[in-house]
């Protein structure tokens, strides 16, 4: 059997490049497997590429980093219907240490409060008390706790390191899980 020729490898590389570019594109509505392509109103609806193509990119979800897009001022989502509500930003990190053998989880309130009010999560999804939330990945994967959004509208649950981000040895005195911590800059 002959090895692949240089031409074959070149063609293969081109195909891989085209494929990866294609995978990064957003689907046309008529081709997304949900919208009815025979519906003439699709021409009125905005295409994802038009709206999302100019925003901060991401490698997962719908390929937009919504947190940095908002922080960079690329989008200005209103906080109420009238658009006159100022977000109450909470700069408080919560550490979750019962994560062995994975890295500890840091939950940053700041980017979450830029998108949501306190009552979106508290007290129905999360009780505001250290140790009062028996969170585990099984429940998250089933759509509870963080999984109500992550894996649905926020970055997916395959992005482990984005939450499990702190080596245990970097926290000198392990606080109880759920405690607020000072983040080292």
């Amino acid at each position, binding site marked *: *059997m*002959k090895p*692949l020729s240089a031409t*074959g490898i070149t*063609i*293969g590389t081109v*195909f891989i490049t*085209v*494929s*990866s570019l*294609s*995978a990064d594109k957003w*689907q046309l*509505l008529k*081709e*997304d*497997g*949900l*919208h*009815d392509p025979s*519906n003439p*109103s*699709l021409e*009125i*609806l*905005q295409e*994802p590429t038009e*709206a*999302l193509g100019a925003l901060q990119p991401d*490698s*997962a*979800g*719908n*390929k*937009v980093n*919504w947190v940095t897009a908002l922080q960079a001022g690329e*989008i200005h*989502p*209103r*906080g*109420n*219907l009238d658009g006159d509500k100022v*977000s109450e930003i909470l700069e408080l990190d919560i550490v979750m240490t019962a994560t062995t053998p994975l890295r500890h989880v840091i939950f940053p309130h700041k980017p979450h409060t*830029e*998108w*949501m*009010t306190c*009552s*979106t999560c508290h007290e129905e999804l999360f009780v505001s008390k250290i140790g009062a939330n028996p969170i585990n990945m099984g429940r*998250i994967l*089933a*759509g509870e706790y963080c*999984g*109500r*959004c992550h*894996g*649905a*509208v926020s970055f*997916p649950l*395959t992005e482990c390191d984005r939450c499990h981000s702190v080596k245990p040895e970097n926290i000198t005195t392990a606080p109880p899980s759920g405690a607020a911590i000072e983040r080292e800059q």
Partner: protein
Amino acid sequence: MNAISRFKRLLLLAVVVIPGTLSRAEYADVVINNRSEQEGVSPVIYPHWFHRIRYQCSVCHVDLGIQMKAGGNGMTMERIINGEFCGACHNGTIAWSVENCDLCHSGLRGLETGIRGGHKTGGPGIY
């Protein structure tokens, strides 16, 4: 180029191109078909991406009381026309009014209610 290497190139083409051309919904599109087809209209496709550019999560999920559970809100056109749910905006003032049926009821027949799309994961199992 012999037959085997041509076959290899075709195989390579299939492996690298086909996955990139499969149709998929955008991450977090919601299909709502609790009642639509029973009532003779197409399922609703709700695009989160479009709405989150314009409104923060809590506007709909707190202020308007829309539960974060696809199909779990008991939405009906009567309630929407009366200003609940989508009707808080889709009233001809903030956004298009409910006469434009096909703009929301734009889905393929036979779709099941649920949250769709997604790169790598398809969303939580029960929501």
